[in-house]
């Protein structure tokens, strides 16, 4: 352990640590993006009646949630401000584009997505300025309240949102589903096309976020997290920084929500309730707060977990058929696994994995050294 640290210091002396970290992040980004974009290839190799999962479909969900979670991670993990209401911004993005594209059939879908992001940014700023004065659990409660208010508005403003029946059936429109996302005449109407779109965009968002956290803004955010007073004293305009991050995270959530609407082709208020907000924050924590990669790991883990649990009985031969339809057990298992994850990896799965990797590496080195020593003794 000590040896490793020393060698790292040597390198850091030669190079500015921030730059180095940034470069490492770029490399990881390229690797991860490459790996993810190859997912459909090996998903295609695994037949559906063997794995009993639709990997590409689940990955589209994961990609959509990644936007939300990256933004939320900036807010919670870096700036230290808890939000239990981000499903509302997710919903605002989805509703804005769905309403525009269903009411006006000529309305370009990509513009609808951008409109959703803009509306959410504006609303995020309007509520963020007053609400971010609150701290800790009180901020969590206020954002939770805002989320609940949004769901009630989605359900009650029937003329605008189609009420609980949803869009498009609840609106008085000709279309029978929300149009597919279309960019420059190219329709993203299948899961596979959306998969590539979503993950390429996710990589872009990730790149931007890496730059943000390595910039001056990022440093002041972290200062905010560790001590607001100290940050204030050091000349960081804390309330302005907080609002900025809040608005950014709201816009990212809305971006995910808008794509979600064009992916689902039908939306109603049930997709934007409190449990969804809680799921987002859970993804951040389970993956690793204040660790952008952790967020992505959290999203992928928690999006796949229910499907894996449901597919489990098919993978194990000789499972009695009574267990095949075992939704009760699957929810129990999901809850239990959530607890286990946090208990064994309280810093998040990403940190847990790298710790395990470091341990493995160390162990390997020890063994190698010992083996070498033995060899030496033998000679």
């Amino acid at each position, binding site marked *: 352990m000590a040896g490793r640290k020393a060698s790292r210091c040597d390198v850091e002396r030669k190079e500015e640590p921030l730059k180095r970290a940034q470069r490492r992040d770029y490399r990881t980004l390229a690797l991860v993006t490459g790996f993810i974009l190859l997912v459909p290839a090996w998903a295609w190799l695994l037949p559906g009646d063997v794995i009993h999962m639709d990997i590409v479909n689940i990955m589209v969900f994961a990609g959509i949630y990644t936007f939300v979670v990256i933004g939320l991670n900036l807010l*919670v993990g870096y700036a230290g401000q*808890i939000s239990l209401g981000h499903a509302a911004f997710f919903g605002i993005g989805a509703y804005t584009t769905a309403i525009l594209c269903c009411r006006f059939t000529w309305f370009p879908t990509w513009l609808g997505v951008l409109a959703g992001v803009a509306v959410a940014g504006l609303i995020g700023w309007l509520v963020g300025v*007053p*609400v971010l*004065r*609150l*701290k800790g*659990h*009180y901020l*969590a*409660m*206020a954002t*939770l*309240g*805002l989320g*609940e*208010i949004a769901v*009630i*508005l989605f*359900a*009650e403003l029937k003329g605008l949102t189609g009420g609980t029946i949803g869009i498009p059936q609840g609106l008085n429109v000709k279309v029978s589903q929300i149009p597919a996302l279309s960019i420059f005449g190219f329709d993203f109407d299948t899961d596979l096309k959306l998969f590539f779109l979503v993950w390429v965009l996710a990589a872009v968002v990730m790149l931007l976020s890496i730059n943000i956290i390595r910039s001056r803004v990022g440093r002041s955010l972290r200062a905010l997290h560790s*001590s*607001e*007073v*100290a940050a204030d004293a050091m000349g960081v305009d804390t309330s302005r920084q907080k609002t900025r991050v809040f608005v950014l995270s709201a816009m990212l959530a809305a971006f995910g929500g808008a794509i979600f609407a064009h992916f689902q082709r039908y939306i109603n208020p049930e997709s934007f309730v*409190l449990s969804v907000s*809680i799921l987002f*924050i*859970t993804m951040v*924590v*389970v993956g690793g*707060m204040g660790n952008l990669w952790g967020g992505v790991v959290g999203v992928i883990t928690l999006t796949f977990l229910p499907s894996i649990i449901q597919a489990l009985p098919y993978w194990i031969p000789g499972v009695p058929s009574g267990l095949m339809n075992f939704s*009760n*057990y699957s*929810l*129990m298992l*999901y*809850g*239990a*696994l*959530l*607890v286990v994850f*946090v*208990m064994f990896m*309280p810093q998040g799965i990403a940190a847990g994995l790298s710790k395990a990797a470091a341990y493995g590496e160390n162990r390997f080195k020890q063994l190698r050294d010992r083996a070498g020593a033995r060899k030496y003794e033998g000679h």
Partner: protein
Amino acid sequence: MARREVSRKTLLTVTAVFIAAVAGLTLALKGSTGLQWIVSGLTVGSIYALVAMGFSVIYSSTRVINFAQGEFSMLGGMLMYSIYMRAGLPLPLAFLVSVLIVTLIGAGLERATIHPLRNQSVISVIIVTIGLAIFIRATAKLIWGSEPVKVASFTGDKPLRFLGASIVPQSFWVFGLTLLAFVLVFLFFDRTLLGKGMRAAAANPDAASLMGISSSTSSLVAWTMAAALGAAAGIVIAPINFAYYYAGTMLGLKGFTAAILGGLGSASGAVVGGLLLGVLETIVAGVFPSGYKSAVAFVILILVLLIRPEGLLGRSEGVKV
């Protein structure tokens, strides 16, 4: 500190005057209908208050928000159904047995999942409570099914009528338990050494350990108390609310809201927050289109927080540098 106390007293007075004014106005404008709203609101509010106290107990000793708090109440109601309605044990015995089982579950969960995380960040522990809530809910569904079940009222269903308003007898059990729980929690935290130590343990673990109270004991005691409180609450409200595996979600949300409204970490805050929330919701449902009931309640909550960021009766924790 002294100034803080004075302002709390002033605030209490202001709140009391405000509540009295709203109540008076409602009564004057709506007569017996208004009285009915207040009576119903107080019943609903007591339910919220009971759950809110569970949140408070755990928060004031560990700073954790327990998202499984509503599930304790759900379990209480469900067990009561099995023990009182199905197995036919006498009421007091069934009550005690149900509370005891949930208390043991609460203590067990604390030792198994919360205790090992004692040195981790509060948010990790909160996520664990979310996982626990999902687990408990799924287990309850497996045992009791998805349909609501009925627990008979303790003392019949014949409503009492007065001045044009009416109230079911079970409401008095809810009022009674709320009062009893409040007194017990208040006395425990303000008069016993253990209680005071637990509060200190949350604020400053090192100082508290000098008093002989470790944060570990503190957490165990808090979870045990919260589970018992939650279960007792779930049992007395089951005849009004019905018991079903999904009930904990709503109770948890309302209880958390009430606890924040009143100010986290104080029993009086929980009671004031709960009652206020219940009465507000009912009056709003009576005056506004009822679909907006919860929305208006949340708007008021956010406004209160903006004016007073630590809740109505909460103590400002000071700024950590």
